[in-house]
């Protein structure tokens, strides 16, 4: 079979993942040092794409960095390469790649079309089987060269793991700067690897909790503009903003429904906060919870049928699940401490959360019925998980004690491969986009 050697390698990795995901004791995962390499990453050689400038090398660098950050691949240092690829369309000398243990090989070429567009071609080779796994080409404007690299990395990821990638995605977040007592906050957007950062708002008003629309062109967030803390919609292409609804109090903690037609959020009135939806087309609002408590952080299941949320109706914040019409409100978190910010996985099988217990803040996941709780990372303050669109990686923000500010981190669903996501200044409230199209 063509894929035999890959199948072997990936099965090894997948076997490890499955075993780890099944491990129930929460502490076991936290204590494992990801640097010990418990998941054996697949050695892969990503050669410089041929081009008449340095763009080919830059593209291969972005591809290799994506694959490396996933924790599932180990790009081989280019200085170890023996064969110099002269024609990316010809079969490579597989022996030269096997001898440096490159189980997969990526070759490619960047050329300029007559109309100025870039043509990017790549081939993925199985060196031990001596065959090509896939070959694709893309056309784009030159300024989109990083996106092309991410798309190619996604294609490699999918070919080898069998799962959709998440590299051609973006992250909206709150960019923070200045001292803690006078912190300035701006909405910002960047590629998932931290490049192409763009500010979406100025520093004048406090902005919090941006969330992507499933259509990707909109972000909902909360702003203190005019000293009226309310939920807003922002069109990413045009920069146009509007208030969501006309509510008699603070609206906060917004999120889109999976069909993008509704925004679900909390409305505060006097001491209570309850959960409402607003239909963006009809502008009708619907109240879903009605308690003398704080009900917040609503998050839809990907099929739209259920909603996870946080409530302190039982004393401390805990996670509850209800039907989309507000019926059947049921508590699902019963561990020590309190549970906040539930976020339903894009696959529907897990709910990520922030847990506060024993003076520590942790990021964890549990099944929608509350079983199978697993802590992925724990420390002084970890908060606000968001899922990569393939449901394999989470991003969150971490704040250390004292005067500094928060930073973004990503972690594999298994609790391995925790990495800082670099931002120009402090960063918080990350929200991962769906896969771009």
């Amino acid at each position, binding site marked *: 079979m063509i894929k035999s050697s890959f199948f072997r390698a990936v099965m090894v990795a997948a076997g490890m993942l499955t075993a780890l995901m099944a491990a129930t004791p929460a502490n076991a995962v936290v204590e494992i040092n990801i640097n010990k390499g418990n998941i054996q990453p697949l050695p892969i050689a990503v050669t410089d794409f041929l081009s008449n400038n340095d763009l080919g090398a830059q593209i291969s660098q972005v591809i290799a960095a994506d694959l490396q950050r996933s924790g599932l691949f180990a790009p081989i240092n280019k200085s170890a390469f023996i064969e110099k690829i002269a024609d990316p369309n010809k079969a490579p000398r597989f022996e030269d790649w096997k001898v440096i243990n490159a189980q997969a090989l990526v070759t490619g070429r960047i050329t300029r079309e007559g109309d100025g567009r870039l043509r990017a071609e790549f081939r993925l080779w199985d060196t031990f089987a001596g065959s090509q796994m896939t070959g694709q080409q893309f056309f784009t404007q030159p300024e989109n060269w990083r996106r092309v690299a991410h798309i190619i990395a996604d294609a490699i990821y999918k070919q080898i793991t069998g799962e959709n990638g998440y590299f051609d995605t973006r992250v909206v977040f709150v960019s923070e700067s200045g001292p803690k007592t006078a912190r300035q*906050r701006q909405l910002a957007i960047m590629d998932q690897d931290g490049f192409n950062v763009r500010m979406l708002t100025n520093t004048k008003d406090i902005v919090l909790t941006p969330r992507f629309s499933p259509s990707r062109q909109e972000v909902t967030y909360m702003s203190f503009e005019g000293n009226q803390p309310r939920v807003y919609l922002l069109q990413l292409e045009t920069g146009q903003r509007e208030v969501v609804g006309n509510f008699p109090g603070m609206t906060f903690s917004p999120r889109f429904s999976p069909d993008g037609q509704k925004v679900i959020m909390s409305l505060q009135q006097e001491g209570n906060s309850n959960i409402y939806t607003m239909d963006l087309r009809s502008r009708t609002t619907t109240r879903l919870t009605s308690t003398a408590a704080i009900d917040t952080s609503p998050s839809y299941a990907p099929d739209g049928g259920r909603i996870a949320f946080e409530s302190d109706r039982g004393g401390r914040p805990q996670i509850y699940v209800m039907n989309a019409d507000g019926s059947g409100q049921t508590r699902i978190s019963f561990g020590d401490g309190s549970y906040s910010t539930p976020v339903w996985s894009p696959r529907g099988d897990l709910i990520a959360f922030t847990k506060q217990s024993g003076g520590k803040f942790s990021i964890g996941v549990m099944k929608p019925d509350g079983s199978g709780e697993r802590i992925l990372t724990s420390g002084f303050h970890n908060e606000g998980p968001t899922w990569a669109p393939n449901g394999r990686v989470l991003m969150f923000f971490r704040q250390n004690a004292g005067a500094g500010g928060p930073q973004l981190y990503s972690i594999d669903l298994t609790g391995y491969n925790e990495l800082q996501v670099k931002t120009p200044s402090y960063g918080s409230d990350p929200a991962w986009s769906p896969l771009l199209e």
Partner: protein
Amino acid sequence: MSRIDTSAMSRMQILARNPAVIALTVALALAGCANKKNLPNNAGELGLNGAGAATPGSTQDFTVNVGDRIFFDTDSTSIRADAQQTLDRQAQWLARYPNYAITVEGHADERGTREYNLALGARRAAATKEYLASRGVPANRLKTISYGKERPVAVCDDISCWSQNRRAVTVLGGAGM
């Protein structure tokens, strides 16, 4: 009617013979923000309108001589006994100066999540507003706003410091809903 600390008062009266010393003392108290609650609220009437002294009825007078903020226990929104005294003073002062609109800002410490702390700050502001209203401040003068954990006054990593950030601040004028 107004609650004046008599020992502080006599101290001020003695010091009043030397206005320069008074100005310095008041300025230090402002900067330190420590014993502001013990200062008399009629410093202006004692002829202390020099640098640093608060004009009666001014925002500074309210902040320095009445006390503009109260503090809460962890995850709590109940008005403590010491906070009740501060709010009683606020209500008296606000009755004397009825032209100020009032915004109560609710705040939380950093040991919670962003969304929950926004709601918690709102709950603290609402509890404070309710107490002030019960002491005769007309509800239509009182607005509230929550800043959650986003506007700490103290930067720290221990419990004694976090307690300074769990607060409700009564702001004269100001914004709010």
